[in-house]
């Protein structure tokens, strides 16, 4: 982190909307910043649409729970967009305890010519009014306003880690460490509990929910991952409380790699359905795995993100880095997957060609329009000129959050308090 960076500016979530026109970020200070892609102009065909700030608002404020004497962090854990149904944009944003539905809309006209108010808005004395006029709408400078339309509170005892909009566009779910709740967008004072893994006796707790997501097309299906490296697929039609899974995905432990940290590194930090809905991708500490929904006993693909850390697990346990939660994303066609690492590195894996690349998000190496140069970590032996050795990696520079445009090769990478947007080069 650079000197002078406030912790509130640390980006905690990044998400494109369904068209890719908008990109939202949430930060530790509870703010949401939305970027909008500029329309490509006919005059400058080589200039791809750039993203500029569209709206900024304070989504969550720090709260104090007086009953439990606890401060509730305002950090935005997740943002999820609703599909656009009219001129306004809607998104869900959540902190540890409360989900909010925000409406972001444009105002580019304002009414003028009121009868009872003057131009400054002061009330006029009715006695002075001798004629009536019809107010007219006049253009004004574009104003983007964000208003909270719903607040979904008091339904989570534990920390919310995920929200997911259902394909029916009427409901969504929120998941915390032990429970998942289903909400209707119109109803804020009640939610349905659909998963509850809290044991009757908390002494028996050995596993928590780490992420959850609805199937992109089947509104009755969702998955959730756990701290023990398992994924459960549930069907809401089967029963009201989905404590029994329909499918259970788990890869048997590799005995040659077993260590005291096996469970910690198997803990899944993110789970994402492919756009097709046929696969799920999971991220654990060292790998990204792709699972076929029809095969529960092992993933169909495993990608090593930074295997050179395997021999450093104890140190990473000591400094708590082993608990870092990295996210993962699919590209629009589900052919490439991306995830972050340390030293501001992020990795992309092409599922078809099996090629992978390591790139770096840092100001020094990224001038506008510059081409990203692949990076390489040297794991032993002679270090080449361009390589960086494992021991030189900066573990405070972690890329936990990334996003991929739904249809184009545009990616957003959050590096602590900086947001990088990379695009395919125009030929």
């Amino acid at each position, binding site marked *: 982190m650079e000197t002078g960076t406030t912790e509130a500016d640390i980006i905690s979530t990044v998400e494109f909307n369904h068209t890719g026109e908008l990109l939202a970020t949430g930060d530790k200070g509870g703010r949401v910043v939305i970027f909008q892609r500029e329309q490509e102009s006919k005059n400058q065909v080589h200039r791809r649409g750039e993203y500029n700030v569209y709206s900024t608002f304070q989504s969550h404020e720090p709260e104090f729970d007086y*009953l439990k004497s606890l401060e509730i962090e305002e950090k935005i854990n997740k943002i999820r967009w609703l599909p656009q149904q009219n001129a306004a944009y809607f998104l869900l944003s959540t902190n540890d305890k409360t989900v909010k539905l925000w409406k972001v809309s444009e105002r580019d006209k304002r009414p003028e010519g009121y009868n009872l108010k003057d131009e400054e808005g002061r009330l006029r004395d009715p006695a002075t009014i001798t004629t009536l006029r019809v107010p007219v709408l006049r253009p004004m400078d574009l104003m983007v306003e964000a208003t909270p339309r719903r607040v979904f509170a008091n*339904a989570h005892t*534990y920390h919310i880690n995920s929200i997911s909009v259902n394909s029916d566009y009427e409901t969504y779910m929120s998941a915390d460490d032990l429970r998942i709740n289903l909400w209707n967008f119109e109803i804020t004072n009640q939610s349905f509990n659909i998963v509850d893994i809290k044991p009757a006796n908390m002494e028996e707790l*050995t596993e928590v929910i780490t992420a959850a997501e609805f199937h992109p097309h089947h509104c009755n299906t969702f998955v959730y991952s756990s701290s023990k490296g398992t994924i459960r697929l549930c069907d809401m039609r089967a029963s009201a409380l989905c404590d029994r899974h329909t499918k259970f995905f788990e890869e048997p432990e590799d005995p040659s790699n077993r*260590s005291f940290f096996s*469970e910690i590194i198997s803990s899944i930090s993110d789970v994402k359905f492919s756009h097709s809905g046929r696969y799920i991708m999971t991220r654990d500490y060292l790998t990204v795995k792709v699972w076929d929904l029809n095969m529960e006993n092992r993933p169909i693909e495993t990608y090593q993100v930074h295997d050179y850390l395997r021999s450093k697990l*104890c140190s990473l346990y000591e*400094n708590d880095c082993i608990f870092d939660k990295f996210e993962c994303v699919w590209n629009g066609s589900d052919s490439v997957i991306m995830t972050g690492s340390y030293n501001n590195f992020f990795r992309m894996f092409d599922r078809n060609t099996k090629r992978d690349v390591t790139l770096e998000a840092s100001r020094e*190496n990224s001038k506008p329009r510059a081409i990203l140069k692949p990076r390489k970590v040297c794991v032993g032996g002679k270090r080449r000129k361009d390589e*960086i050795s494992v021991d030189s990696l900066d573990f405070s520079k972690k890329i936990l959050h990334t996003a991929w445009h739904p249809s184009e090769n545009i990616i957003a990478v959050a590096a602590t308090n900086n947001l990088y947007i990379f695009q395919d080069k125009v030929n």
Partner: protein
Amino acid sequence: MMLSKGLKRKREEEEEEGKEALAVDTWWLDPGHPAVAQAPPAVASSSLFDLSVLKLHHSLRQSEPDLRHLVLVVNTLRRIQASMAPTAALPPVPSPPTAPSIADNLLASSDAALSASMASLLEDLSHIEGLSQAPQPLVDEGPPGHPIGGAPPSLGALDLLGPATGCLLDDGLEGLFEDTDTSMYDSELWAPASEGHKSSPEDGPGKEEAPELDEAELDYLMDVLVGTQALERPPGPGR
């Protein structure tokens, strides 16, 4: 080197930390095992155990613990404990016998701090009503390199969340009344040891039976640490 010079100072700091952190990676393993990176370790040293207990301690000290972090640390601690159990001996000898010097320093300092804080913890906890039948407080650290209590205790309770995150909706009125017990949040409970408790063994004779007594004490300590004994939760409705 391709990396920026502009961040040189910061990177050097990080490098040093990074180097230090990564360089001592193998100290926690039983040195009897070759090929540290490859061989699945059979026995963890007490330092890894201590580190984990400290992490657990630290995690519990948070006003609202990160449940995932807590569960993972506890599970890891259980694994370590399971691997160390067979090596308990009477009187406890430092095992492994020769740890690297870095490890010695770590062990000495962490043992002292840990035993001191545990002793203080027990002392404070004895004030809580209903704990009058508590076993004798834990004896002190003993020789350096000696893991606390010889055999690590079984980790039972994880009822750490008691009033901390118990929800009004969740437990009904019982939960509400539990919240008013603020003993869990008394700062003395979690503070480092005061002067008076530092290094004096509480009872000589107790020390002879060290392992059993220690185990029971530690069992009890862990139970209280995670709140089972102090805050018995009545079963909630409908659960």
